[in-house]
C-alpha cells in the first residue's frame, strides 16, 4: 500500500492535568478525506492543532510522506504544505480580506515592500471562484458576515497549494448554498490528490464527503472505519457511547466488551 501523506502516531497532550489528546493515532492518504467526529470537547481541534503547529505535543510522532517531521510552529506546518481552516477562523478582524489571506506570506515588490495591489488582485481571483458574491475587498473582515469570513479563511487555506488540508468545522457559519460550494470544493481538491481532515458534527456531511472516519471521545480514538463499512447509527453509537461496531477498527478509547456487559 502507498505511504500515507500524514501519519500521527501515539499523540498525547495535556493541559494542566486534562489529557485533551490521549494516545491518538490517525493517518491520511493522498486523495482521501478523513472525517474526525466526536462530542464537544472530545479533543478534535486540539489534535489537529498539533498537526498545524499551534500546539506542541507532549509525546507522539508525526510522519509526512513516511518521513518523521518536527512541527514546532505554524511556519513548520506551512512548510510541509499543511494548511488549516481553524474553527475560530483565526482572522485578524481589523484587516481586510487580502491582508488576512496573505498574512505571514505577503507578496512583495522587488524592493521588498508589501505589494497590496498584487495581493488584492490574487484575492479577487480566488474569491471569484469560492464565493462569487463576495465584494467587500476593502472592509476589515469584522464588517463581514460569518459566512463571508469563513470563505476568507477557506480561501487562505486553499490558495497556497496545500497538500494536506485541515478543515475544522468549515461550514459551521455557511448557508445551504455556500455549504454546497464547500462540498464541491472538497471533492475537487480530493480529485487533485490532496488529503483532507474534515472535522464536522454533521454525520450526513461526513458520510457524503469522507472516505474514512475516526471518532474521538475524551481525547481518545474510539475507532476508525471506512464510511462504507458502518451506518449512521453505528457512528452515533461510537460518538455517544464509545461503542466500536463490527465494521470499525477499535482504538484505545473503545468501550471494552467487559465494560459493555
Amino acid at each position, binding site marked *: 500500500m502507498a505511504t500515507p501523506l500524514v501519519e500521527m502516531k501515539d499523540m498525547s497532550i495535556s493541559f494542566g492535568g486534562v489529557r485533551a489528546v490521549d494516545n491518538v493515532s490517525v493517518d491520511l492518504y493522498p486523495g482521501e478525506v478523513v472525517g474526525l467526529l466526536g462530542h464537544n470537547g472530545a479533543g478534535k481541534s486540539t489534535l489537529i492543532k498539533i498537526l498545524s503547529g499551534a500546539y506542541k505535543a507532549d509525546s507522539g510522532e508525526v510522519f509526512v510522506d513516511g518521513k518523521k517531521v518536527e512541527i514546532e510552529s505554524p511556519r513548520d506546518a506551512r512548510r510541509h504544505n499543511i494548511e488549516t481552516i481553524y474553527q475560530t477562523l483565526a482572522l485578524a478582524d*481589523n*484587516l481586510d480580506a487580502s491582508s488576512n489571506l496573505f498574512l505571514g506570506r505577503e507578496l512583495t515588490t522587488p524592493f521588498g515592500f508589501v505589494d497590496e495591489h498584487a495581493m488584492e488582485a490574487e484575492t479577487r481571483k480566488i474569491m471569484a471562484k469560492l464565493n462569487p458574491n463576495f465584494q467587500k475587498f476593502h472592509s476589515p473582515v469584522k464588517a463581514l458576515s460569518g459566512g463571508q469570513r469563513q470563505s476568507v479563511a477557506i480561501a487562505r487555506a486553499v490558495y497556497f497549494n496545500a497538500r494536506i488540508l485541515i478543515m475544522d468545522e468549515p461550514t459551521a457559519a455557511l448557508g445551504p448554498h455556500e455549504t454546497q460550494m464547500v462540498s464541491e470544493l472538497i471533492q475537487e481538491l480530493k480529485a487533485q490528490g490532496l488529503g483532507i481532515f474534515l472535522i464536522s458534527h454533521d454525520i450526513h456531511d461526513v458520510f457524503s464527503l469522507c472516505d474514512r472516519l475516526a471518532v474521538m471521545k475524551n481525547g481518545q480514538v474510539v475507532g476508525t472505519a471506512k464510511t462504507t463499512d458502518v451506518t449512521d447509527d453505528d457512528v452515533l453509537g461510537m460518538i455517544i457511547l464509545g461503542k466500536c461496531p463490527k465494521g470499525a477498527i477499535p482504538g484505545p478509547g473503545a468501550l471494552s466488551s467487559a465494560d459493555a456487559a
Partner: protein
Amino acid sequence: MSDDTLSGAKSPTARNLFNALQLDTRLLGMIGAFVFICLTFQVFTGDGNIFKALVNGNFLTPRNIFNLTIQTVSVAIMATGMVFIIVTRHIDLSVGALLATCSAIMAVTQTQFMPQWLGFELGNPLIWIAAIAVGLLAGVLIGAFQGWMVGYLGIPAFIVTLGGLLVWRNVAWFITSGQTIGPLDETFKKIGGIGGTLGTTWSWVVGILAAIAVLAMQYNGRKRAQAHDFPTKPLWAEGVISGLMVAMILGFVATLNAYEIPTRRLERMFETRGEIMPDGLVAGYGIPYSVLLLIAVAVVMTIVAQRTRLGRYIFATGGNPDAAELSGINTRFLTVKVFAIMGGLCALGAVVGSARLGFSTNDIGTLDELRVIAAAVIGGTALAGGVGTIYGAILGALIMQSLQSGMAMVGVDAPLQNIVVGIVLVLAVFVDIIYRKRTGD
C-alpha cells in the same frame, strides 16, 4: 455601492461630490478640531470684534506657528512609536524617563567623554555624530530589553514600563550626578532649536520637492490601481486632493519663511562668520531641522506601517494575537522590535528636546509619557489595539501643543491648563468611540 449606479443619472449633489473625494472622515474631524482650536485662540489673542481679532490675533502669526512647530516635534516623534506600541495592545509609560536617560548619555558623551577622555577638540563634527549614535543605541537597547521582558517573560507592559519610568529617570540622574549638563555641542543644538533652520531658499526647495513627491505618489497610486482594474476616484477628485496637499505644503513653508530673523541676531550670525551684514537685509528662518527630522520619521514610520511586513504584523497582532501566531508570526520577537523602535524614537526625542534647551536637565521629558500617549490616543489610536495611524498621532501632538501654548498665551493659569487638557483627552476618546460605533469600524 449599488445605489450609486442607480442614481448615476441624477445631477450630482454636494454629498455625492464629497463622497467622490473619498476622504478619511476621522482625519477631517481631527483637522477640523485643530482648525477650531487655532481660530479660537486667534480670536482670544486679538483685539476688537471677532473679525478684527481673526486678523490681528497673535496665535496664527508666523512666529507663533514656528514656535508651536518646534515645541511639538519631540512629543510627535515619540507619539509615532507609541502608535505601534498601543496598536499591539501594549503601553509604554517609560518614554519620558527613557528620553531623560538618552539625553543624559548624549550630553555626557559630547561634553565629557569625547572632548575630555578621548581628546576630541570642541566642535569636531564627530562629537555630535557620536553623541547621537550612542544615544540611539542606548534607546534601542533599553527599549528592546523592556520589549523582551514583555514579550518573552510575559510581564505586562504596564508594569515593565512603570518600573522603567522609575528606573530610567533615576539612571539619568546618576549619569549626570544630578546636574544640568551643558552647554551642548553647537552643531548638536541646531537639531532642536531656533538656531537650526534651512533658510528661505532651501525651505522652498524642500517644499517644492515635497510637493512633487506627493503628486508623484498620487499619480503612481492611480496608475497601479488602473493597471489592476481596481475602481479609482474620479480624476477631478484626485486633482482637488492633490491641489489641497500641495497648497498645504507650500503654505506651511511660506509661513515658516515669513518668520524673520531679528536684525540683531542676523548681525551676530554674520559676525561669527567674520562677515559684515549688508544693510537692510531681511532673512526668514524657514524650516527648522527638527521639523525635517519629524517629517523623515513620519515618512519612514508610515512606510513601515503600511508597506512592510513588520507593519502588517504589528497591526495583525493588535487585531488578533492568536491569529497572528497561527499565521506563523513570531509575536514575541515582534514585541521586542516594537519596543526597540519606541526606544530609538525616545532617543531622537531626546536629541530634539535637549538640543532645543541647549542643555540636558534633570527634569527633561518629565510627564512626556502622558503627552505622548495622549497624542497617540487623540490621534485615533485605539487602546483595544489594532487601530491607529502615524499622521493621526502627529496631529494629536499638534493639537495638544496648540491647546497648551494657546492657553498660556491667553493667560490661563497652569492648573486650569492641565484641567482643560485632561478633559479634552477624555472627550476626544469619547467622540472617537461614538464615531467608531457609527461607522462600524
